[in-house]
């Protein structure tokens, strides 16, 4: 098995602290500047959601992309390291959060703009399926089994999920073009963008990328700590039993 992990307890690094501070700063300025954007004619104040909604979606794609790449790295025997499995798991978990937030912010925008919380639009439907696919991935990860088995199966599940995404996308796209009564293209915020909107949205992209990076590092650290204490917990239990036995013998 792997070398004893006792001597390399992952500590919170300075880099993570700086990244976290930068992420917080970028996030706060996105929110402040985003709320300061002028309301648009068509959508009123709701157009301001553009500062966070597309960046959230981007962060979700980024997260799942990282999961896919690290899963390949784990499956390929030459690059197989426990590190890749942990990164894949951490990134998928962060990605699920971002995907859920994308759907929530989209829904909040859709209610006043389209009049409904949910519509069977192609992009909405494929995002919801993406969320379901990765919830399944996390469920698979949550199963108690041998670490290597779990890592291998999870990596395969992640790849299958990622491979499925384009097929899902095409099917719902074609499906909706048949039944779509209203053209969403007219209603997308891009049609009435001015310079300040673009600037704040770009800031939002930067902020969400930083937030993703920070969350990934911290989640990875927690994952490593959990494994560490699991190993240590077993060792400690063994020592205790041994001490008990010795005490009995001494008596």
């Amino acid at each position: 098995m792997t070398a004893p992990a006792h001597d390399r307890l992952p500590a919170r690094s300075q880099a993570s602290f700086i990244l976290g501070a930068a992420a917080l700063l970028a996030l706060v300025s996105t929110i402040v500047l985003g709320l300061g954007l002028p309301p648009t004619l068509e959508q009123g104040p709701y157009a301001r959601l553009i500062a966070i909604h597309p960046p959230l979606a981007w962060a979700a794609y980024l997260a799942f992309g990282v999961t896919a790449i690290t899963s390949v790295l784990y499956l390929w025997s030459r690059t197989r390291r426990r590190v890749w499995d942990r990164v894949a798991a951490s990134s998928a978990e962060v990605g699920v959060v971002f995907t859920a937030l994308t759907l929530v912010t989209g829904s909040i925008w859709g209610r006043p703009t389209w009049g409904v919380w949910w519509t069977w639009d192609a992009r909405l439907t494929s995002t919801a399926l993406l969320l379901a696919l990765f919830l399944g991935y996390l469920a698979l990860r949550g199963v108690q089994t041998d670490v290597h088995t779990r890592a291998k199966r999870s990596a395969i599940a992640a790849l299958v999920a990622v491979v499925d995404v384009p097929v899902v996308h095409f099917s719902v796209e074609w499906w909706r073009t048949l039944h779509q009564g209203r053209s969403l293209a007219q209603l997308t915020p891009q049609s009435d963008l001015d310079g300040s909107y673009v600037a704040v949205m770009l800031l939002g992209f930067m902020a969400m990328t930083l937030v993703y990076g920070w969350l990934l590092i911290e989640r990875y650290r927690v994952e490593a700590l959990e494994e560490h204490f699991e190993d240590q917990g077993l060792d400690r239990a063994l020592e205790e039993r041994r001490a008990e036995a010795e005490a009995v013998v001494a008596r």
Partner: protein
Amino acid sequence: MWRDAALVAGKDLRIEARSRVATNQVAPFAVLVLVLFGFALDPDRGILSRASAGLFWVAVLFSALLAVQRSFAIEAVDGGGDGLRLLGLDPAGIFMGKAAAVFVELAALELLLTLGVVVLYGVDLGGAALMVATAAVATLGLAAAGTVYGALSAGLRVRETLLPLLLLPVLAPVLLSATRAWEVALGTSVDDGWRWVQLLGVFAVVYVTFGLVGFGALMEES
């Protein structure tokens, strides 16, 4: 590989033929689903016959879950999975064999369900070529993806609840495409049905390839 596949498929189908689980449990279940849709949507034949393509494929999807679960449950008892590996069969062959057995079971079930929607929902069959082509390609995709995920969740303690969660979102494109194509064939929708068959073909190719390449990695440990 082909010989191994034929052996595994023959074994699985023989087990099904002798244990009669597929005929005594899975098939009645599928028909029951059709009857339940009838209860839920009123015996008003208008709604039922208009929605029959979708309802048919939902019933197939549920039955596919059972068939896949069953396909890996028979390996779980008496160390069947270890036995398969010890025989030195090609993993790609095992995948093909198991998927082929699921394919045959599902195809038989689809015949029964087609009869069911004709009798229970009052559907007029039409566009036979499109219907059969859709069913064949969709079932190939279902069997391949199902076998990959069946192996993925095999041997885990929570496999009964995990498999639907993993498999159903993956199969969503199959449900969509097959339903659309059948709607065209049954005359409830006007569209280019063959376009959907092509999409189903892409799905099937993706998962057959995935199974052929990845099944070895899944088998060697469980």
